[in-house]
């Protein structure tokens, strides 16, 4: 039964890894456009990263997000 000392943490960390992966994919916006993702894979020329990641790449250049002052 001493094997449990190794196996229990090992399997738990595998489970934890899966949970972390789920949270990461969720935060990266990979569930936001399932139909679009299915279509994007068919076209080599389309931007095919998850939306939030591509947006973040863009915003890294200009991070402010204030509504534009109305004249």
């Amino acid at each position, binding site marked *: 039964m001493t094997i449990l000392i190794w196996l229990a943490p090992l399997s738990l960390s595998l489970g934890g890894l899966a949970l972390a992966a789920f949270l990461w994919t969720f935060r990266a916006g990979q569930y*936001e456009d399932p139909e*679009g993702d299915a279509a994007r894979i068919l076209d080599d*020329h389309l931007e095919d990263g998850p939306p939030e990641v591509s*947006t973040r790449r863009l915003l890294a250049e200009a991070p*402010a997000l204030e509504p534009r002052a109305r004249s």
Partner: protein
Amino acid sequence: MALTHDGDAFAPRGGSDPEPFVRARGDALLSLELVVRGARCAACLGKIERGVSALSGVRAARLNLTTGKLSVVWERGPTRAADILEAVRDLGYPAAPFDPAQARAEEDSEGRRLAIALGVAAFGAMNAMMFTVPVWAGTGMGEGVRTFMYWAAAAVGAPCALFAGAPFFESAWRSLRKGRANMDVPISIGVILTLAISFSETLQGGRHAYFDAAVSLLFLLLIGRYLDHLLRARARSAARDLLALQARTATLLDPDGSTRPAPARDVRPGDRLVLLAGDRAPVDAVVEEGAADLDVALVTGESIPAQATVGTPIRAGTLNLNGRLVARAEAAAADSTLAQIARMMEAGAQTRSRYVRLADRAAALYVPVVHSLAALAFAGCLLAGLDLRSALLRAVAVLIITCPCALGLAVPMVQITASGRLFRQGILVKSGAALERLAEATHIVFDKTGVLTEGRPVLLDADPRLMALAAPLARASRHPLARALAEAAGPGPSAEAVIETAGFGVEGLIGGRRARLGRAAWVGAETRGDAQHGRTELWFGFEGEPKRRFLFSDRVRPEMAEAIAALKARGLTIEILSGDVTGAVSAVAIRAGVGRWRSGLSPLDKAQTLAAYQGAGVKAVMVGDGLNDAAALARAHASLAPGAAAEASQNAADLVYERGLDSIGEAIDVARLARRRALENFALAALYNLIAIPVALVGMATPLVAAVAMSASSLVVTLNALRLSIPGRRS
């Protein structure tokens, strides 16, 4: 005023200049969100994204195919927001700017929270079970190993259960503070008691601990909760998209004569507005300059255009058909004519919020029964001579095994399947409760204009030769009567040197001869004044020749008679309530085969009629599209509006349909079917409890039995609900 026809002023972009909806991202970048309709495939996606990216300065264009939103980021420079909108429209997709304030409201924090709770519960359930399954399976496992396994399950399961259960605990607490008990109360009590008793058992080295059950219970319940949330969130965002496609911007005229676009909600009383042909008035206003024909169908229900000159009051929602008007705003958007209607809608919504949903009715029955059963079990076991600990264990076993897993899934599963099926048929369901109310309907009340009829004039039979003579002039005008004539005549040449005088008619050269098409006096004819109610006339003639007349009337939808007959066949009573004149209403009622109809009703009359039905216990469904129907829509037991309806009406309606009148029958069928499936699910859940409670009472509800029984009952309920998505099955 006269207006020459270059056609440009009538492009369908009137009233939706996207400039006010542009957001700045830093100094150099701008961003805009557009609602795009009709993009369904990979090819559309590539076409739109490439088309927009090809504009100069565009950094990124990304279309979300699921929600139909296009986000564009571009550099400040020569490219304007209107160019982007134009580019998408030129590709053949209707598009409209999306308000950033609404986009922010759409960030769905509740949905994210539920999804994360669901992920955590899934992790907790699987990993807690990893420790408990060996206990169930293992024979000859010593007490030490068993206790170790339970502590490991507790370390994983308990924190996950507390995290994933938070939405239920909060909802139960809110409900208890109001002195009520919803379904979340027994769920919360069940989960907390399960955890507590499992800890106490593990401490004492007992044989039964239910850490895995507590989490897997929450996992199954969260599936139901998440589906219910998805249904509401999807309907809300689809409803907002429909509204974004209606005019949301106003054109303000500054004192120096320049114009600028502004969101309708920023218009203040006293502002001067420019209304071009194709614009809808954003607020109540009074005409100061110009003349035009107005389409008031959405506001009053009349299908024949009205004339506007200096001093004419215009109500919000009125469509300018031709000519340029300058008008002074009389009220802000928030308190235009809409204010009174909004108050009536609120009153209606209040009476409707008293409706008790099926699941809550079940909970009201279920909670006292289960809790008193658990209490009885406890008392019974004590009386039967069991010690305090075993008696408590039995009582808790009853609570755990009856925890309303299947009940929590029973209704949301059915409603999401049903609304998914309706969504594919172009019917948008705004809430699950709407489906429940629709299923109870016995009575359907129709508005006439725009619902039973097309809501626009159509040419009544005319001499084909005369039609061919007048058609070139008609083709040059965008007035609805002229368009109806041009449509009837088919394609052909246009007149030359055309001048349109708004409110009077068009004049131009046909084959070198001067001709006029318009009002009798302006064309030079003497009207016989014998046009029946609900009909309108247009005169035509060459200079110096006799004048001839065309007659128009609003046309009933081609599918009307059949759709109404089908509704009657379903046992529903049909009635027509219209704001239009008696003659027009009776004609349609006869065509529809409807005996009960009333005409000349004000918005208040309609709402009161529906309120009277509600008072008498008649479950009446209202179908309407105009502002004048909004209060009645809110007051009815359930309501539907077509996709072309006024904003307030779409807000007030429970369901919005985008195809023909057949949709109403389809929606009622699916609603009734959904109700039957929900009741079946309740029966299945009750059956499960009938078997499970005795098992728990005699102390046979081991953790293994509890886990299998709960999952099995949830699975059965889910499969039963999915039967709804099989198309073509009628109730």
